């Protein structure tokens, strides 16, 4: 009995000493060495454990073993608890000591910006892509054929004079004057698309166009348009009105609506102007559209008795100008970085 009670008191003493050592560790490193010591060969608990074998009575030995195990667990738990406390304290100290002023940073490289006309073009393209259109492009220097003739404007057509065309000087004496020009609209691309694609065609054609206009707050001689065509069997005027409406809502917002009213363009018939209406009821003229004239379809190599199509077009610069409240369109083309960087 005496030996077992001695063992019990030795275990209890080992635990008391261990717990005090743990409590005495002041930082994680100190605790780690305490931990190593307690697990070491010379630690009180290890010594006691090694003496277990000497106990003859099986029952006694078992209960002594259990007591040592319980003691070891208590110590381990105390270490864990103490370690967590010390680490938390140390991290808190670290965080407190390394405060940094986040507004104190040096920019390595500033991001540039895309031009607002490009931004407008891309937004327009994306809306039409969503409506199932592909994007087509064409040359800016064009022939009379693509810019006028193929668009139902033969040589003497009076509407030609309304385009204020800029012509290219003939390259040689045998080149006919005014046969090469800067395209006055994106419509030549209609013809090029029809000549090289097969119906069904759903295409939008953004691009740069040229008119002999003196620059002012709302006009530039070099500006941008987007034009769209749909050519397929069974395409009617109602589809034109539908696409204009769908575009209006997608681009300007659901509160906008559109209307078509009769107008005249040589390349479409029936022709229409399309207006959009703000929620406040104000109508804004946006662009022109219409059913493609049979002569235009023919010029594109498409049989007007088999296919029908519609076309629409409007200016891009104005979209950018109005979206960003630019007062004078010329500002968009000064290439002043103070202007450009506003829109990154």
């Amino acid at each position, binding site marked *: 009995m005496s030996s077992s009670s001695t063992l019990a008191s030795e275990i209890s003493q080992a635990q008391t000493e261990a717990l005090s050592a743990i409590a005495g560790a002041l930082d994680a490193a100190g605790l780690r060495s305490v931990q190593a010591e307690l697990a070491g060969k010379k630690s009180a608990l290890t010594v006691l454990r090694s003496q277990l074998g000497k106990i003859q009575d099986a029952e006694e030995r078992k209960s002594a073993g259990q007591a040592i195990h319980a003691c070891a667990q208590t110590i381990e738990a105390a270490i864990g608890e103490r370690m967590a406390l010390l680490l938390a304290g140390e991290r808190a100290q670290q965080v407190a000591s390394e405060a940094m002023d986040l507004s104190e940073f040096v920019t390595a*490289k500033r*991001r*540039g*910006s*895309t*031009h607002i*006309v490009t931004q407008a073009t*891309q937004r327009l393209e994306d809306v*039409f892509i969503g*409506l*199932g*259109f*592909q*994007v087509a492009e064409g040359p*800016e*220097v*064009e*022939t009379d054929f693509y810019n006028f003739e193929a668009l139902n404007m033969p040589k*003497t057509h*009076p509407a030609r*004079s309304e385009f204020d065309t*800029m*012509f*290219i000087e003939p*390259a040689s004496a045998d*080149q006919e*004057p*005014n046969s*090469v020009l800067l395209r006055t609209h994106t419509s030549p691309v209609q013809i090029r698309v029809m000549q090289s694609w097969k119906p069904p065609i*759903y295409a939008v054609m953004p691009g*740069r166009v040229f008119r*002999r206009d003196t620059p002012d707050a709302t006009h530039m*001689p*070099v500006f941008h348009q987007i034009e769209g065509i749909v050519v*397929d069997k069974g*395409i*009617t005027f*109602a*589809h034109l*009105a*539908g*696409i*204009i*409406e769908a575009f209006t809502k997608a681009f300007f917002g659901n509160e906008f609506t559109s209307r*078509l*009213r*009769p*107008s*005249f363009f040589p390349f479409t*018939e*029936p*022709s*229409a102007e399309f207006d959009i209406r703000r929620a406040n009821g104000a109508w804004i003229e946006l662009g022109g559209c219409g059913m493609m004239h*049979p002569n235009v379809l023919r010029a594109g190599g498409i049989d007007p008795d088999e296919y029908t199509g519609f076309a629409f077009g409007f200016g891009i610069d104005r979209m950018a100008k109005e979206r960003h409240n630019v007062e004078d369109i010329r500002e968009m083309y000064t*290439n*002043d*970085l*103070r202007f*450009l960087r506003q829109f*990154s």
Partner: protein
Amino acid sequence: MKILHSWLNEFADFGNDVDAIADRITELGLAVESVDRVGTPVKGVVTAKVIRLEKHPDAAKVTRVYVDAGDGIERHVWCGATNMQAGDIVPLATLGTNMPDGRVITQRGILGIDSEGMLCSGTEIGLSSDGSGLLILPQGTALGLDVYEALGVDSDVVFDLDVTRNRPDCTGYLGVARDLAAGMGKRLVLPKVDQSAAGQSLTVPVAISAPERCSRFTVKVMSGISITQSPDWIARRLTRAGMRPINNVVDVSNLVNLELNQPNHAYDFESVKDGFIVRLAREGEQFTTLDSVERTLSSDDLLICNAQDKPVGIAGIMGGLDSEVTDATTSIAVEIAYFEPDAVRATSTRLALRTEASLRFERGVDPFGAEFAAARFAELLRITCPNLVVHSGATDARTDALHQQARTTEVRLNTIKRVLGIDVTAKALEDLISPIGFTVSNSADVGSVVVGIPSWRNDCNGEIDIVEEVARHYGYDNLGKIVPTSPVHGRLSDVQRRRRILREIVVSLGASEAMPNPFLAPGDLAKVGLSEENALKLANPLVAEESVLRTSLVPGMLKSIAYNQSHRIRDISLFEIGHVYPQGTEVLPDEYESLCIMVAGADASVAMDLWSQISSSLGVGAQLAQDQPPAGYHATRSAQLKRGKIVLGSVGEIDPTVLANAGIVGRVACVEVNLSVVLNDTPKPQIAQVISKYPSSDFDLAFVVSNSVSAATMVKALRQAGGNLLIDLALFDVYRGKGVSEDSRSLAYRLRLQAPDRTLTDVEVSDVRAKCIAAAEKLGATLRG
């Protein structure tokens, strides 16, 4: 085209809801640009007579006008208009008058000289839509009267219509009224005419020697005329339409023109009674039009001459001074003709002379409206000339060029269905378009009808023109809105997608997108070291400084850099993606899309860094041909980017001379890439490499290398020496200066070795290191301790 509400209502009962009328006109395709009320009285505006005019030496743009407002007191008024002369009766807004635009008339003048009121234009007091000068009231108007009272003015509404080119009939009241009556379901009432032919037969012979240019020429003689002023209502109509009342004959002529869209000319009969000759002018022939301007004609201009071959008018545009109706005129010859539209337009453009007649002839008037117009002329003239005699024997000279009166076109009802999406029967078609003068009759073809086109619609020729008329009168809004379901996959092409990626990369590299003018001044290309020989020139530039089309983005970009530098903007980094247009061998130039990035204050290494980022993200490689510096670049700090013989672009610094010419301070790094080539590349997808699970070994090597050996050569040698085990090689430092001889620099590389299938031994690593050092030494490099 200005349309008066009261006048329009004479053609049908359109009612008084002017907004509804305006909306309906717009829906029919004649956009109403403005609706203005006229004739709402302005209190305090009285009639006054101009006594005399004086100029002030210090005020060139204004006139001192002395007027009498009926009280015999001479009042002084400053006036900016120039159309008045002594004796004219004009509106005087007296002191204290509240003008419709909000102004209050005060005594304050200029140069310290007071103004006792203001003389007004028709627009300023809402009496006409002509704001170009003072409103001149009819002679004999009493002075000092309220202007509105004096004129017996009723208030009215002016619709200003934007008449499109396809509506030649709508530059006259009848055409507008016909469309609107159909559109509003009203009955059209034609104006009253006088078809009497009481007098002796008087025929004026007409010889047309240019039959293509004048296909019809009618002359009607009327006598028993006394020249007077028109009644107020006629004068007011003309005034409100922006025309000046002259006398009863000229006013009637103008009324008929406005009302029936039928330009006509009244000659003093005595001056033309022997006949007319319609012929082309002789080159350089002189003629004084009735605006007293002497005009020089070309052999393409058509003249109307009297029997003595003396010109009396430029066909379709303006008459002459000498044959004009005068106060002594008692008989007139009224000419109503049809002139070929394109030729009238050409002459009108050449002479820069646009008249009420020319604007109608050049669109195409009704070639068969002459009789009705002449009868209307007589009806209106009889108001002031009760003794008017209309002579029989009117001349009607026609040539083979005259249009057929009854033109027809076959219309397939299915075409209406295909284009407009609506089913229209022959009956429904007739209901829609017969009110506007078309006829519908049976065709030999089933499903088709024959549509007769009215003679006043020369814009209509084929089936599709009829479809448009159907659409207009059916109503665009009634055709429905259906969003078609596209069977096409909406997407950007590969080129367009790559362009967008490229743009994002360039922006993320710090550049902002510019859009310089693609037009250059002569010499701009030479200034940047490029030839102007292959540049296109504009035949009709706006200004000479913008007459050359760019063959390179460089000149425009340099201008933008210089602009920003001159505005003290820091960190200038710009790019452009745009077309250039060098002349090739075809009709159209070798136009292509180009990218140009410029960074001010940066050297060639910045340009190389930009190119390497672009090249790796687009997956396009190029050889760096530094032995072929591109034109306009710094000769020892630039290279062409090449793929075999194809030039993909240029990279490096801009030539210091070019920069000096452009007024740019400091270096400019530049990258140009031909996007038409590069964006068209479709790089194959990268094949994934297995990432080795085994440890890698790193070491650095720094060499002193002669300047004559390029870094690229070094890299190539190290790569070769490193073999398959060398998985990473990067130049991380370049050093020139102390400790390195002047013709050399130190290049420091970081190398990483790794095998896919094993851990490398120390022996393997030192073996590769030794090989690399040996390879470098072969190039004359020495390892730095």
